[in-house]
Each structure stands twice: as structure tokens, then as C-alpha cells.
């Protein structure tokens, strides 16, 4: 309570008696009972100004319709942009990869999928992506068979094909990601006492973040399906449906292996749920009793769920092929090899992670073999991951606020911060990171806006801006420039960051001087980098200098954000 927004309102308008009373109550420091709705920090945003007109409708279903329709329009309008590798014969880009997978899955028997012409965009995503491609390929062939004609359609570029692909991407997001966000905000919103209207504002902020829109609908990919499945999994954890959560999570991983970034934490969290909290033990509390309360039946159930879900997903590869052990194991091994291509190297292009940034000083590729580097990054990642995972496990078992009697939302908060920290650690330290991978840690980070905290939201919005900024070299290469500027401007406008009044924006946290300095200087540095990038060619000796400046700045911000969320996790009670 006692956020600056309400105080400002009062001073501006002494006539608003009602609000005055509320805020004077909070000044006296009276604890806010958890049953009352916490005053929203989003009341001063432009977004609220727009949705305000629909607030009176019961259930705000109108506002929700408007949110979804606007999301579709925005994505369709961004989709007018060129896609990755447009017009770049003969190899094109990710767009051609996705199209090629549709082509190969509908024309080849299933056991050949992962073997076919690996040099030309060989299938290297897990089975659910393959099935998704198969479905869309079949659907597209109904409209126009030459879009996905075998071999002859390679490198095909036409407006109607582009439109079809764009619409499938929008449809996938509409079916998986957007319902997942709305569902999550609804469930989590109840835990943190958000009103219906605020839930819609929060959903709008999450859905309008530019990174995912630019990558999925500009660059062209289907990340929203993976992220949406993960979000469903997260929501199911909050609801307490651990079995469903496991199923969704396995689906997410089987759509795109990048979802494995979430795996350590989801494992740690679910594992700690198998124990009873110290304060939940009725009599004779002791550490031993906590450890003794381990629920092996639940573990067994979860394990079975994971195995069966994976089996069902892999089943088609077994059924539709010759029934020989050798053949089947060969196919499954090939899938594994394609999905985890360790031979590719530490990083692709320039990425804002630890290895790429320190590579400026230490040339890893010259000093170590690929295998050594892989081992090095594995060890570092695991070593850093142990800290947040064990911390959360400890808290889950031995802190009072994490017991079932507690009415605080500490458990859910730990979930959000935990996913944020671990996925950022993965991004910063793991092997084979791509700049688009930033979407994975960015999702749980963005979800933090639901905490309705005027100190947290500016930092989250800041990291979102930085993440979009870190995509700039990629987007510039594909000339998705207009869309980059427009979407980045839109979201910051909507949360009020261009407002001059300091009380109505989420530019910087109000209390922390440290963050004020950091955030403002980051924004200035970003503008400077954009300026030199636009006006000057890099020195011929270092052709990648501007890109390196970009990744270095982003790396600094990402690490800082990761450290901050670790700290938040540490102090969480």
C-alpha cells in the first residue's frame, strides 16, 4: 500500500474524500488485510485510460475481447514485415526452415524425418514441432499444394505463402500462448489479490511485450507454443495439479528443447513439494521428520507421467516404421542427436552471454576443443544453478510462510523468481545459446509485473527493453527496423514511460537510487549505441564493434537482473 500514485491523486484532488481516507489509513501503517484488493499500480498507465471505459461491464469480458483482438491486429500488422532470409537465395533463413519442415514431414515416412538431407535445414527440433509442421503442412497443402511440393518448393517465396505462414503463427499463439497468459494471470491474480481490471492490464502488458512479437511474427518462428505450454505448466503448479503440470512441461520441452532451461527449477520445486513443510508437521517437529515425510507415491506418479508423456509423443516413430529394435533405437538416437547438436560450438553469432562477452578477452575457440568448452560451460551452469535451486528447496521445507497454513503468496513468488533466476543463469552460462533464446528467461521475468509492485515493474520493463535491444543486430540484418521501433515505442507508451510526471511512469523505481542510476544510464547507452550504429560505419579493423557493444551492454544488464532476482529470491519470506 501507500504507493506514490495514490498520494499524488490525493494531493491533486482533495475533493476525493474516499481515496483520502484509504491512503491516510495506510500512512498509519495499518497492515492491509489480505482479503481486500491491493491498490493497483497500473491505475495511472495509458493502458488503464483506454480500458477504463469497459470497466463497468460484468466480468470485463468486453475488455478481454478487445485485448485479444488488438493482439491479433498488432501481430498481423507486424507480420507485413520481411521475414528472416527473405530474398536471400539459396539458403534463406528460419522461415524457409519452418516451411521446409512442413514440406518434408508431409512427404516422407515418419522414420525418415530426422535423417533427410541434413545439410539443407535438416529437422533439428523435437517431435512436437515435427507434428506441428506436419499438421500445418497438410492444412496448407489443402489450400495450395505447390507451397509444400516435394523438393521443387525449396526456397519458394510468394506473398500468399508468406501470409499463410504468418497466419499459422498467429493462430498458434492464439491457441496456446494467449489463453495461457490469461489463465495464468487469472490464477496468479487471485493469489496476489488483483482486481479483474488489473488482471486485464497485466495480461495486456505481458502480451504486448515486443520481443516475442518481433521474433515470432517478424523473424518468424513458433516460440509462442513452447512458451505457452510452459505457462500452462506453471499455472498448473500454482493450482496444485502437479501431474498436469508435468505433462505440459514435457510437451513444452518436446516442442522446443530450449524449454529445458526451466527444467532444473521445475524439478527442484516439484521435488521439494514431495516433502512436508516443517510447520505442517503436527507434532514433534524435527528436521528428520521433514525428510521422513518424503512422499514416494507422488514421486512415482510424477515419474510415470513424465515417462508416459514422452512415450506417447515418441510413439508415432515406433508405430509407423519397420518393427525392429535396431531400427527404432536408431531413429530415437538420431532424434536425440539432432535435437542436441553438441558439435556446433559454444555460441552462434554474437550473443549477450558470459562466453561471448568474455570471448573478447579469452579466445575460447582457440584455447580449448569443442568438448572441453562444452564441459566447462556445463560445469559452470550447474554450479551456478545449485544455489537458487537449493535455496528454494530449503525455504520450501523450513520456512513458515511456505507451509500450507500460510496465506501469503510466498510460494508463488518463489516460483516466479526461481524460474527467472535459473533461466537467466542458463542463458548466461550454457552452451549453444542463440540470441533468440533470450525469450525463454524473459517470459518468467515479464510475469513479475503481476506482483503489482511499483518497485519491481520498472525493473521488469527495463529488462524487457534491454532484451528487445539485444535482438537489434538480428532484426537489423532482416530489416525489421520499423516494427522494432514501433512495438518498443508502443509498450513503453502503454505503461506510461513517456509520461513526464514521475508518478505516472514506470521508468525507474521510486525508492532505489542505485536502480535509478543504472536504468537511466542503460537507456542513455542504448540510445548512443543506436546513434553510432545508424550514423557511422564501424572501424574496418573491428567490423563487429557495434554488435559487440550491444551484446556487452545487454550482458551487463542481464547479469545484473539475474543477480537482482536472486537477491529477491533470497530475501523472500
Amino acid at each position, binding site marked *: 500500500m501507500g504507493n506514490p500514485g495514490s498520494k499524488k491523486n490525493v494531493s491533486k*484532488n482533495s*475533493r*476525493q*474524500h*474516499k481515496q483520502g481516507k484509504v491512503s491516510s489509513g495506510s500512512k498509519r501503517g495499518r497492515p492491509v488485510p489480505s482479503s481486500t484488493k491491493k491498490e493497483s499500480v497500473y491505475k495511472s498507465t*495509458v493502458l488503464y*485510460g*483506454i480500458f*477504463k*471505459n*469497459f470497466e463497468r*461491464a460484468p466480468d470485463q469480458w*468486453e475488455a478481454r*475481447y*478487445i485485448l485479444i*483482438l*488488438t493482439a*491479433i*491486429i*498488432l501481430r*498481423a*500488422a*507486424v*507480420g*507485413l*514485415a520481411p521475414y528472416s532470409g527473405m530474398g536471400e537465395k539459396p539458403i534463406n533463413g528460419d522461415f524457409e526452415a519452418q516451411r521446409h519442415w512442413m514440406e518434408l514431414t508431409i512427404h516422407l515416412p515418419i522414420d525418415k524425418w530426422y535423417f533427410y538431407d541434413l545439410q539443407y535445414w535438416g529437422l533439428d527440433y523435437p517431435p512436437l514441432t515435427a507434428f506441428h509442421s506436419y499438421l500445418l503442412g497438410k492444412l496448407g497443402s489443402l*489450400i*495450395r499444394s505447390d507451397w509444400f511440393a516435394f523438393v521443387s518448393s525449396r526456397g519458394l517465396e510468394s*506473398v*500468399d505463402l*508468406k*501470409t499463410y505462414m*504468418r*497466419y499459422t503463427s*498467429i493462430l498458434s499463439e492464439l491457441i496456446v500462448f494467449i489463453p495461457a497468459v490469461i489463465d495464468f494471470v487469472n490464477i496468479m491474480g487471485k493469489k496476489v489479490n488483483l482486481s479483474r481490471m488489473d488482471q486485464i492490464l497485466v495480461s495486456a502488458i505481458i502480451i504486448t511485450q515486443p520481443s516475442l512479437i518481433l521474433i515470432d511474427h517478424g523473424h518468424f518462428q513458433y516460440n509462442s507454443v513452447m512458451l505457452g505450454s510452459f505457462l500452462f505448466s506453471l499455472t498448473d503448479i500454482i493450482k496444485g495439479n502437479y501431474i498436469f503440470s508435468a505433462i505440459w512441461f514435457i510437451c513444452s520441452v518436446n516442442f522446443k528443447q530450449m524449454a529445458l532451461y526451466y527444467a532444473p527449477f521445475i524439478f527442484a520445486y516439484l521435488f521439494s513439494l514431495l516433502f512436508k513443510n516443517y510447520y505442517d508437521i503436527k507434532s514433534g517437529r524435527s528436521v528428520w521428520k521433514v525428510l521422513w515425510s518424503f512422499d514416494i507415491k507422488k514421486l512415482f506418479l510424477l515419474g510415470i507421467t513424465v515417462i508416459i508423456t514422452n512415450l506417447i509423443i515418441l510413439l508415432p516413430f515406433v508405430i509407423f516404421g519397420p518393427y525392429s529394435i535396431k531400427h527404432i533405437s536408431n531413429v530415437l538416437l538420431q532424434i536425440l542427436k539432432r535435437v542436441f547438436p553438441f558439435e556446433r560450438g559454444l555460441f552462434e553469432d554474437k550473443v549477450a552471454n558470459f562466453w561471448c562477452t568474455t570471448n573478447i578477452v579469452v579466445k575460447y575457440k582457440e584455447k580449448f576443443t569443442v568438448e572441453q568448452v562444452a564441459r566447462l560451460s556445463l560445469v559452470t551452469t550447474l554450479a551456478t544453478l545449485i544455489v537458487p535451486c537449493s535455496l528454494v528447496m530449503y525455504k520450501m521445507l523450513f520456512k513458515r510462510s511456505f507451509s500450507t497454513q500460510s496465506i501469503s503468496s510466498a510460494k508463488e513468488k518463489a516460483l516466479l523468481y526461481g524460474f527467472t533466476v535459473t533461466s537467466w543463469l542458463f542463458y548466461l552460462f550454457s552452451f549453444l545459446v542463440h540470441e533468440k533464446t533470450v525469450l525463454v528467461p524473459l517470459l518468467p521475468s515479464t510475469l513479475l509485473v503481476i506482483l503489482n509492485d511499483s518497485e519491481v515493474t520498472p525493473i521488469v520493463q527495463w529488462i524487457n527493453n534491454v532484451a528487445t535491444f539485444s535482438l537489434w543486430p538480428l532484426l537489423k540484418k532482416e530489416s525489421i527496423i*520499423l*516494427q522494432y521501433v*514501433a*512495438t518498443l*515505442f*508502443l509498450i513503453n*507508451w*502503454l505503461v506510461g514511460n513517456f509520461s513526464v510526471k514521475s508518478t505516472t511512469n514506470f521508468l525507474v523505481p521510486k525508492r532505489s537510487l542505485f536502480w535509478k542510476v543504472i536504468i537511466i544510464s542503460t537507456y542513455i547507452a542504448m540510445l548512443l549505441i543506436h546513434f553510432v550504429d545508424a550514423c557511422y560505419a564501424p572501424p574496418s579493423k573491428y567490423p563487429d564493434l557495434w554488435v559487440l557493444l550491444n551484446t556487452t551492454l545487454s550482458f551487463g544488464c542481464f547479469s545484473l537482473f539475474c543477480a537482482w532476482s536472486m537477491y529477491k529470491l533470497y530475501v523472500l519470506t
Partner: protein
Amino acid sequence: MAKKDQVTSPRPSASTQENEEVDSEGSYSLFNIWVITLVLKLLVSIGYRSTDFEVHRNWLAITYHLPLKQWYTDTTSEWTLDYPPFFAYFEWVLSHLAPRHVIEDGCLDLVEKGEYGMLTVFYQRFTVIASEVVLFLALQWYVNSSRGYTDKKRAFVVACSLVLSPGLLIIDHIHFQYNGFLFGLLVFMINNARLENHLMVGFWFSVLLCFKHIFLYLAPAVFVYLLFGYCLNTELLYAGKISHRVVRWKNSFKLAFTVIAVFTVAFGPFVWYGVMSQLLARLFPFSRGLTHAYWAPNIWAIYSAVDRVCLQIYFRIPVSRSIFQYIFQFDPSNLLNKETLKSSTRGLVGDSEYLILPEIKPQLTFFLALFYQIMALIPLILQPTFRRFVGSLTLCAYASFLFGWHVHEKAILLVIFPISFLVSRDLELLDSFNLLVSSGYMSLFPLLFTCEEWLVKVMFAFLWYVIFYFNFRKVTRIPKSIGGQGRLSLGRMINSYILGLATILLCTSIMDLYTHKFAFLRKLEFLKLVIISTYCGVGVISSWNIFSWYYFMNESIWSND
């Protein structure tokens, strides 16, 4: 306890109302809407653009390179200048504001076929977006000059519905034209009428006419309104005391001076150079066909559709031949000529002729439009108030849209703009409004035939409809005596008609998807347009009927309270 509650209850409610009023001061701003739509406009700016883009580029080139006297005689490109002088001046200003890079890009080359890059596109898109600010300013003024909480709220909904209009997005920002700016001037005129600044009404309307002569459709209403509301003393007139005092001479001279001044500034230079006849020939090309490249959803679209159906019956059912022959007295030898048949069934571009039904002469369309316009003017003569004025503006636009010669479907905005200022007045007008906007906006869809923009145009129109269907319902005045069963079933019919629109959109879109696959669908290309324009035509005509009914039969809507 209960008594105490009763005593204290009025106070909080009064204070909340006060709060709302205080709140209202800052919150009725269109600025945020402008910013958000700006993002959308920027995003669609790289997409499809019609030949109108090249037309306007050529006008920029003409006004930049040629002396004024040659503007209306130049024929370097086929896209000759055919808007009135103010628009030409406007293009002149824009061409001189163009930055150096844009000029180097080929934006201002006076050639037969322009060759230019993205810079030109961005510059011209920018001019549309920038000039549209006039509309926002005009509507903001309209909102700000409304007094009282309810009035302000109503004005705000109207203003939002107009600035967010899918028509403007489709026509201006994708198809490419400058309607937003011109309709901004129209809003200036309408709001001046509301504030009873008759002189300014005359001024803005003559300015508007000198920008785009399509606004001549509205001229009868403006003329009668100014004549009876400003130049004549109606009290004396209707009392039968005819003398020189019936005419308010001072007002008349002021108005005449204003209008003549505006027209002199516009046309003077061209009269001076003696190119008026060429100018007028450009502005009023009577040689064009009755239905335009696409079919506007009006009477003639339905007439053509009936003609096509008759033709099919004529060929399929031999018995019918003599009947048709007897009724319509046409020349059957025409039907045997393959060439004319092809040209008429194609119907896409070029003039479509009627084969069975009698030919329509331009004079007939003119007299029909004029007749219905005069009908709409009679109540205005008796009662020259603001609402009557806007009502007659609407009906004049309706009449010329439905019966006019060579009407383009874009002209539907001419009806939608004035009617929007009336709907919040009475719930009963809402039916007519909903019919008009749904069929009118839908009829604009075929303008953008590229598949890339399909989702944007459809979703934006749908979103607009969802938002304003409910918002207008919330703010409109509910009349004391609301029609019973009849009105209810009318509402249902309208809703099912609108559902039908969705079905037709779906069917025609699916037809579009499969044209490459099935040859017979390619032959039916024109059928798609016929279906859309006929169905939308039914909607527009019905909305016209409903609106006319309330205009002539319901006194309470139009009087000042």
C-alpha cells in the same frame, strides 16, 4: 439504522458524481488514441498501396515542377490532377516540404510512370498521417465544446468512433488518400453549426468544396440551412409578413462575402490564366460509367445484379425469353454478340452495361438523387436547427450515394460522418447506424484485395464494431416511449443481417483462397463482387429507410431541448 442510511446515502453518490466530473476534465483526450493508432498506421505503411498512391505522387510532381496555369492541362501521366484548387495548393505545399533524400528518391519526378523507393512511400504516408491531425483537432474541439457530463461522454464516444474508423484506416492508410484531413474540415463545419456560428459554417464548407468537390453532395443541405437559419428571418416569413425585412441583409452580405472570398482565392488564379474550362472538365468528367471499377453498394448495384440474374434466366429457361422481350423491349441481337457479353460479365474494370433491363441515363440518376435530397430539405426549411441540419446532411449524402452517377464506395464515409453526430441522441437511430456502418465498412473490404492485409482489415473492423456497438448503447439517450414488439423484431432482423455479412465475408474469402485451383471460380470472379455489393447495398438501403422514417416521423429526436 435504516433511516440513518437514507439520510447519508445521497452524499456519497453526489461526491462520486463530482469525482467523475473532476475526472472528466483530463480523461476526454484523444491524444492516447492518436498515439496508439499511429503505431498501427506506421506498421501498415509498408504494405499494399493502390494506384491512388501513384496518382498523388504525380500531383506532387505536377505542382512542384509546373507553373500554376499548367496544373490542369498537363497530361504527362494518365493520373491527371482532378481535385479542386485548394487540394492542388495543398500538394504544392507538401511537394515543397519534401526533404532532399525524398526528392532524390524519385518522389517528385514528372514522368509517365513513377519510379521510387521506400523513402517516397514513407514520405507520402507521413503526409497522410500528419494531415490527419486536423481530424483529431476538430474532434477534440467538438468534445471540449460539449457541456455537461453526459454530453461530453457522448461526444467522446462519437469522436473515438470517428478517429478509429476502419474506413479511414482502409482508405487513407492502406489504400492511400487524404480523407482524414478533409473530414476534419467537415467536422469543423458541423461543430460550428452546433455552436451556431453560421458564418463559419459557410466558410468551412466553401473551403471543403475547394479541397474536394465530392462534398457537393452535401451542398443542398448546407445551402438551405444557411439560407433559412441565417439569411432569412423565418419568424416573419412563416407569419406571412413578406417585406424586405424578411431578408437579414447584414448576415447575407457577410456570408456572401466569405464564400466569394474563399472561392476567389481558390479559383481566381485559374480564371486569371484562363484555364477555367479545362479545370471544370477535369473536375466533372461525365464520360465515365454508371458503376465504377468496383460496385458501390447502392441501388444501381442491385439493378445490375438483377440484370445479371435476368440474363441467366433468359439463357437457361427458353420460355422466359418472350416474357422478358415483352416487358423490357430490348434488342435480342445484343445478347448474341459474344464480345458484349464478356465485357458485361467481367464487370471488374470498365463500364458495365445492362443487357436486359433498360439503360439508365445520367439525367435519371441526377433527378432521382435530387428528388430525395429535396425531400430531405423540406423539414430543414421549416425547422433550421442543428439536428435537422445534420439529419438532412446525412440524407443528402444517402441520396447521392444510393442514386448518384458514378459513385465510388469510398463515398460511404460521407454518410457515416454526419450520422455519427446524431446517433447518441436517440436509441432508435442506433439500428440504422449499426446497419449502415456494418454494411458500409464491409463494402470497403474489396478495395484491399491483397491477402496480407486481410487479417488487419477484418479484425480492425470487427474490433471497431465490438467496441462501439456496446459503447454507443451505453451512452445514447433512451427515449420515453420506445417501440414495442415491432422494434424488437427489427433489431433481431438487423442482427441476423449482420451475421449474414460475416457469412458472406467468409464465403468470398474462401472463394478467394481457391481461385487458383478451380478454373470455374476464376470465371466467377465478378460474382464475388456482385454478392458483396448487392448484400451491402441491401443494408445501406434499409438503413436509409429506417433513418428516413425517424427523420420524417419522429419529431422528438430533432427538436432542441
